[in-house]
């Protein structure tokens, strides 16, 4: 959620029961402003909160001018001091896929995972148990990345592509009409397109290159209940945002 419209967005998303206490909200507003200044971001978004056993992580993301370029992720435990997280790599994802259970709440906590690795010693091949240590920070990074790739959603028309390449916020976007808002095809994944090039020429002909440059939600599997649109209160709320 944009820090400018933070309060409004929080209220709209309150249907799921998760909210922020007043002190958190107040501290978020101030600290996000400072983060924007310090890191020179174009927009700072409050990504959300990850619940853990001891203390919750509050996550924010900063965007530069080009909206689709990789975002910088920051985390904080008290909504006041923010620390930058390293960008996610595939290796991290593989490592953290073995870790199960809740987050501990301590970023320096290390998960221990015993793996059987084949060790070659001369001609003998035997398996040795190796204890691999995975830091919670790494796990945090990869989880955020996975969630983003899967469910970060943006309505059609909110961003547009300029002829020079960078993607900008569409200032004339006024929201989707009620009939458009009910369709899954008017929402896109907020990430680099993966399936766009697989479309047939006929389908591509219907697309508007300045607006339709991301994957639509229509073709996601599981279909239907995978991303249900519910009309909550006065405007539709996406399960992803």
């Amino acid at each position, binding site marked *: 959620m944009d820090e400018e419209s933070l309060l409004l967005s929080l209220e709209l998303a*309150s249907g799921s*029961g998760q909210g922020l*206490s*007043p*002190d958190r909200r107040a501290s978020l507003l101030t600290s996000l402003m400072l983060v924007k200044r310090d890191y020179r971001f174009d927009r700072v978004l409050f990504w959300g909160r990850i619940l853990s056993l*001891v203390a919750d992580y509050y996550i924010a993301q900063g965007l530069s001018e080009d909206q689709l370029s990789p975002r910088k992720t920051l985390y904080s435990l008290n909504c006041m001091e923010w620390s930058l997280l390293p960008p996610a790599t595939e290796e991290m994802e593989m490592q953290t896929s073995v870790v*199960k259970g809740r987050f501990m709440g301590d970023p320096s906590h290390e998960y221990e995972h015993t793996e059987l690795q084949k060790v070659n010693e001369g001609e003998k091949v035997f398996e040795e148990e190796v204890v691999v240590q995975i830091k919670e920070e790494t796990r945090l990074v990869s989880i955020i990345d996975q969630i983003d790739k899967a469910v970060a959603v943006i309505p059609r028309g909110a961003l547009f592509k300029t002829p020079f390449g960078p993607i900008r916020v569409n200032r004339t976007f006024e929201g989707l009409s*009620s009939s458009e808002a009910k369709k899954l095809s008017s929402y896109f994944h907020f990430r680099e397109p993966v399936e766009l090039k697989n479309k047939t020429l006929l389908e591509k002909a219907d697309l508007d290159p300045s607006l339709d440059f991301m994957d639509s939600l229509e073709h996601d599997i599981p279909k239907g209940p995978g991303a249900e649109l*519910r009309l909550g209160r*006065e405007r539709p709320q996406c399960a992803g945002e």
Partner: protein
Amino acid sequence: MGDLPPDPEPPPQPTSSRRNSQVSERRRSREHSRPQPTVPGEVQQVPLDAQILRSSREMVSNQINRGWSQGASLTPNENFIFQAEEAQRGGIEYPSLNTGFPSEVQPQTYPSEGRLQASHNASLMLQQLQQGKGNLFQQLESAYQEPRADLLGQYTRYQREDLQFSQGTQHGPYLRDDPVLQFSPSELGFMPFNVEVPEPDPRELAVQNAKAYLLQTSVNCDLSLYEHLVNLLTKILNQRPEDPLFLLESLNRTTQWEWFHPKLDTLRDDPEMQTTYEMAERHKALFSQSGGGEGEQEMEEEVAETAVPNIMEKAFYFEQAGVGLSSDESFRIFLALKQLVEQWPIHTCRFWGKILGLRRSYLVAEVEFREGEEEVEEEEVEEVMEGGEVMEAHGEEEGEEGEEDEEKVTDVIPKPTWKPPPVVPKEESRNGTNKYLYFVCNEPGQPWVRLPHVTPIQIVQARKIKKFFTGFLDAPVISYPPFPGNEANYLRAQIARISAATHISPLGFYQFGEEEGDEEEEGGAGRDSYEENPDFEGIPVLELVDSMANWVHHTQHILPQGRCTWVNPLQKTEEEEELGEEEEKADEGIEEVEQEVGPPLLTPLSEDAEIMHMSPWTARLSCSLSPQYSVAVVRSNLWPGAYAYASGKKFENIYIGWGHKYSPENFNPSLPAPVQQEYPSSPEIMEMSDPTVEEEQALKAAQEQALAAAEEEEEDEEEDEDEDQDD
């Protein structure tokens, strides 16, 4: 002018006349130009008259219109008809006013006498106009005043006349619209007519009945035959197709279509019926005060003893903890609970929480009825159970008969050895899992639906499956192992599990009542009732956060059996013993069921089992920056979404979530059971391959050898015997 036959119906002077005047104005201007060259003299006078006529008519029509609009009994459709016929009227009256142009009087051929009469009247008017314009003037003036005085009378008259007009009676609408006749002194004749006919004619009655019949709306829609015919005729008259009779069918169809697809006014947008508006309407109903409020006394009573909890206060505390719905939604929930309390005889009520679903969510209220109010539902359930038992008995009898038949048959079909496990009886209302009643609704404003009581088998099965709720109570739950019930039952089972696991309170808030009996007599099941401790003084918030021992469960733990108090399923009731004597002996030796024991009521949270080396609860202060005003918040790690807060003497539990337990691994639905053995395998039915030729020959050779050996032995024995005998 007095020679005009008294017109039984006063010409109505509603909008028709207004329209009329507009039409006539146009034609007037057109015809003005024409007469000028021919009869200049009369023309000068005629426009004058016409103008006066026009102005007077307009005034009259305006007045009548105003009176008209106050209580119009005429549907807009009928107005259309008037207007349609108007256009033709103009044709008649106009020439009539333009005196001296009899050539232009074209009496239109209409298949009704009214028309002819009108034209007749028009021609009469013409004559009179030709005779003396001054005369006309006076008469017009007098007529001008009459309509005003007669306005009301005409108006009421028209209402009665309204009923007469249908089915092409001779008193068609045409006459009424004739503005010429408006000012005819024959109106004077209307006055006595008004007075003379106050009661309805039998004929009029018949006409009323006929019209009422026509006005019946069809079963499928709101359209009545009457309206449809009116639409159709209006359309025809407006469009004036060449051969209307031929086109009647298609016109009929288009008219019908148009009724359902009204042409939107292109200048003005119709407001959309959005779902948001409908939602707002429903919410509005919530806000209306019930009963109108008879004085202040009732208000005070209501304020004192209401079962509705203070939702706003709890919402405020939960908001401090970072949990909960937005404040206006909380308020709407409060109003909805108020509605619930008014509808049902409720003793205590609590907002249990919100369960999110794929399409819609559920708001759940936990409710306890007043004493003796639940009998209705129990009776129904008992009937169902008895019906079930009767069926079972019937089934067993049939089985016995079947056995006798089968014995006669040589091949006995093996009977299945599988018997369904004995059904664990469900708990009584107000006990154990069914201690409270639950009502759900999808949104505040929608009616509350009562959830059925939960049975142990449902709880047992609910533990094995994990399905998202869709939001519709009658949706089936398709899963393996199959869940006995629909979404309402599944919801109730999950609510029971969540309540049993996560409803906690600070230590000391509840205490056990005075003991009524020995523990041993109850089978060691422990006490199952508690009461509020009047001497409870709140535990300081910091202590609540530090140690889990300061919190206790105040709902009973659910045993693996699915109940809170253990029941031996093998104990049969008397009926079953009579029927199943033979089976009992077989069973007793095989199954022994152990009594299941769970932690007793009011156990502290520190005794709860850990998940993967994690404590099942997380406790925190709501705000670390101001500990003196904070609230202690406890969050369940086992059921994500369950929260409890405590501050001073107040505490509350809430659940907002998807309704599923936390599991570290991803959920894998259990695989179907292996296919059961259909028959016992024995050598009789086992397939064996036929012996090969070599084997057969070998067998034969072996048999022959054996035979030969036996014969030799016999021969030997005989020889021996012979030898003996010889000796």
